């Protein structure tokens, strides 16, 4: 540099200061100890924090097992489905405190290879240590991860083995192995996981659970760590947590449509089931799927990957694109699609022995059936909390959750035996213009028959009368079945589970769209009722003490009649002031309730 020119003293001072600090940094960086020690101390602290939450899962004979992780202080713990399959409904669990606890299987997700179990507290006031759940969508390839568990069932004192490694990839898809088991959107790690690590947690460096370890790739080598392991992402499990807590046998979703990747690398629909909701909402062969639940879809693989994280029955936004020949341009549309299930209904409901009525319809799907195993009898303390029932992981917990939701909703001060009379005005929307036309309405609900007077028209229906034609069940025309929907709305409010012939069950969390668009999404807990030919879904928000809506399906594989209840209530009874009636893609009517009364018969 030119040395002849003078430099302002301040500038020189800065240069000196920078050099000195630079040197100091250099010194600190060379002598790596503080940095290394600090990182090490941080790791040790995280490991100490997570250790108490890690569970060693055993069968009752103590012969085999896996791992798990406690996710709340009541003792709920996540593990793999394939871990509790051989242990039966009442595994035994060891914690890092050296104690062995009785446990019971709560809910199962065989496709996702996840199970929720509950450790039985030894005392009523006992609180279990647990690990918080993280956000697996923020995990990136190259991040560090910690796996904890009981590989090779090494620990006799149940203190977990800790392994440390890198996240090798995210949003990975692993093909089904054997029957249904499929790892979608999973996290790939080089963190060592071995037999016995199954079901154990994968943590980030904040000590939050980001996944459940469950699978390893190997080919020529033996079934031990090959540097390529997979963890089920915790965000997927969160979608199923309601189902799991509710003691269900959860099922994953399919779109009812198959896509393949075209030359431009886009997911183009090449096959679609006509009985799928996607078809009813307008998706057709040749359409390009652009996004699913807001996540961009680049190709058919990604579609499969993203779809797999949702439970059956969820309604999620699908964005697609189609070339419109008439307008000579590409149009994009977002639809809300109710996802179909992966496992055939007969298997889920345990009526495998019943022959499907139309075998030719079932044939082309060729779905595998899970292996039938001899049930293992429940034993120990956990047996008190176990009720076996086809279609459920553990029916005991379904009842528990159903009661919680039902009891959180406000009681309607109308007698259950009384005839309910609802008076008000209805805005009927014109099919083409969408403009409302107002008519007075009266509805008479007595628990058996529904009568509706709408302007000058009158409808009457006895929903459970045998041999009623489907067209009648769909009365009034265009509503999709308002009469039946009103009947079961009353049934739920007046009698709760007793209002449903074949029972009322808890169905976990589901998104709910009060105004029929994806922007209006809110989270609800769903009750599912069955009565006669009808299936009814009731969307509840127990924490807000609000009943959000009701869907009534008078037939299989067809659109329901939807009732959406306003948060504002009619003053006397607490019934909603407005009920919106929807069917298919259309808003059919809005009922404004002015007066509700009960009349003893």
């Amino acid at each position: 540099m030119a040395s002849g020119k003078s430099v302002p003293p301040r500038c020189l001072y800065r240069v000196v200061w920078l050099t000195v600090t630079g040197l100091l940094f250099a010194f600190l960086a060379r002598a790596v100890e503080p940095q290394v020690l600090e990182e090490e101390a941080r790791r040790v602290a995280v490991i100490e924090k997570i250790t108490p939450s890690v569970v060693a899962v055993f069968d009752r004979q103590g012969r085999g097992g896996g791992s798990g992780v406690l996710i709340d202080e009541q003792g709920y713990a996540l593990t793999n489905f394939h871990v509790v399959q051989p242990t039966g409904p009442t595994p035994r669990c060891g914690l890092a405190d050296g104690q062995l606890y009785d446990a019971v299987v709560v809910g199962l997700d065989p496709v996702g290879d996840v199970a929720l179990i509950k450790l039985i507290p030894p005392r009523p006031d006992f609180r279990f240590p647990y690990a918080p759940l993280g956000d697996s969508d923020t995990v990136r390839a190259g991040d560090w991860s910690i796996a904890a568990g009981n590989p090779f069932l090494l620990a006799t004192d149940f203190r977990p083995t800790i392994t440390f490694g890198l996240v090798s990839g995210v949003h990975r898809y692993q093909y089904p192995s054997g029957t249904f088991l499929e790892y979608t959107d999973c996290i790939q790690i080089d963190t060592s996981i071995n037999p016995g690590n199954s079901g154990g947690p994968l943590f980030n460096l904040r000590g939050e659970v980001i996944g459940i370890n469950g699978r390893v790739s190997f080919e020529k080598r033996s079934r031990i760590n090959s540097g390529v392991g997979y963890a089920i992402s915790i965000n997927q499990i969160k979608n199923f947590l309601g189902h799991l807590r509710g003691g269900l046998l959860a099922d994953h979703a399919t779109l009812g449509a198959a896509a393949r990747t075209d030359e431009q690398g886009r997911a183009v629909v090449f096959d679609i089931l006509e009985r799928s909701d996607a078809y009813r909402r307008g998706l057709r062969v040749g359409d390009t799927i652009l996004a699913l639940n807001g996540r961009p879809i680049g190709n058919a693989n990604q579609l499969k990957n993203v779809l797999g994280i949702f439970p059956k029955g969820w309604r999620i936004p699908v964005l697609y694109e189609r070339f419109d020949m008439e307008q000579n341009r590409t149009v994009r549309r977002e639809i809300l699609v109710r996802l179909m299930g992966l496992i055939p209904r007969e298997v889920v409901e345990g009526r495998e022995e019943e022959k499907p009525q139309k075998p030719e319809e079932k044939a082309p799907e060729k779905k595998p059936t899970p292996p039938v195993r001899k049930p293992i009898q429940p034993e120990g303390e956990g047996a008190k909390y176990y009720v076996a029932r086809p279609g459920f992981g553990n029916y005991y917990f379904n009842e528990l959750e159903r009661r919680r939701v039902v009891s959180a909703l406000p009681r309607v001060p109308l007698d259950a035996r009384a005839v309910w009379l609802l008076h008000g005005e209805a805005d009927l929307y014109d099919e083409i213009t969408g403009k409302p036309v107002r008519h007075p309405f009266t509805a008479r609900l007595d628990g058996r028959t529904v009568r509706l007077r709408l302007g000058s028209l009158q409808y009457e229906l006895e929903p459970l009368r045998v041999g009623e034609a489907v067209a009648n069940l769909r009365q009034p025309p265009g509503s999709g079945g308002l009469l039946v929907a009103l009947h079961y709305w009353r049934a739920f409010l007046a009698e709760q589970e007793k209002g449903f012939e074949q029972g009322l069950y808890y169905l976990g969390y589901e998104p709910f769209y009060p105004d029929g668009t994806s922007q209006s999404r809110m989270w609800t807990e769903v009750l599912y009722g069955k009565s006669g030919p009808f299936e009814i879904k009731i969307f509840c928000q127990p924490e807000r003490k609000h009943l959000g809506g009701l869907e009534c399906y008078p037939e299989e594989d067809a659109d329901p009649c939807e009732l959406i209840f306003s948060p504002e209530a009619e003053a006397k009874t607490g019934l909603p002031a407005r009920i919106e009636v929807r069917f298919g893609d259309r808003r059919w009517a809005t009922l404004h309730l002015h007066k509700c009364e009960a009349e003893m018969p």
Partner: protein
Amino acid sequence: MRNQVLILPPAPPMPARAAPGWMLVLAACCWPALTLVGQLDPQHGSFARLVQEVQPKLVKIYGAGGYVGITDYCSGVLVSPDGLILTVYSPTLDSQELRVHLYDGTRQECDLLAAEPVLDAALLKIRDGEKKFRDLPLAYFDLDRPTPKVQVGDWVLAFSNCFQIATREEPLSVQRSVIAAITNLSARRGIHELPYQGTVYILDGITNNPGSHGGALVTRRGELIGLIGKEVRNTLTETWVNYAIPIEPLRDFVSKARSGNYKPLERKKPIVEDRGGSTGIVLVPNLLERTPPYIDEVLPGSPAEKAGLRPDDLIVLVRIPARDGSGTYEEHVVQSVSQWRDLTLPIEPGARIQVVVRRQQQLLRVELEVERRPDFRPKKPTGEKAPAKL
């Protein structure tokens, strides 16, 4: 506390002077150390950013194979902005229809420019790469830059498409490792000796899985230092070896191969010396690549007949004097007719060997003394049939 030194008291203004040159030099010297501090990610040392930088320079290669033990996919690294791809030499490349998937998910057809088994390297080129990538050059590893020196104990990251987890635009798998040793490769792939016997980095992670070969080994700064090797076993311990071949010796290969001037190296053919021994065992004709070593005939009066061997016995194991002349014995699983030939031809007449054969459901171990073939005349050694060309 050392850290408190950082809080400097304000110094009085100094007389105006030019900044001495040594200060700048000093500042420059400190710079690498400062950048090292900068590398320490606030996310607890995550490599996520580095992984994102490296991924676009990697490709998934699809070629021949697909049967047991040989994958039809492998990994590669881009070494030029117009689509030159460096990978390791493997049967996967033995295809007229080589394809790669780039980081953005596009599929490209490739040609094999040169392959060198002795260096364990091959160079591919994306067809019409100059035209395709003229306006949007690809990210690549610049081999003209000096390769950083690495030593045992250094942290490295391995990128590969192991198990074909990724297709199209899906990023390759990344694993962390430490260079456990820098040594000569003495490993074997199946029963074939690997032609490559040069220096390798032995890694402590499980980096060499199906399809990993040709993947990138990079430093913690993302500099390319090696290519991940194939799935091989150590000849002595039969354990799987995780290794990478250093990039440095491949520079010359790449620069010659890209200009079309590369001439394959002369290879010393492994020699099996016939010492004139005979056991009297005649095996079935060698018709397959790996013909099972069934005994076809036992010569009358031969050591084999005396030992009780019979036609239709299947040879499973042989215990022979160690080939290094140490006087010890070594045992080999015999998997083919040609392997039996390679193992037994060099045995000196008079040596005792043990053979384990399978007869129906039984395993029999017999011992026999190798006798001299009466018609044997020592001559110039016969060269072994050249290994099957890829």
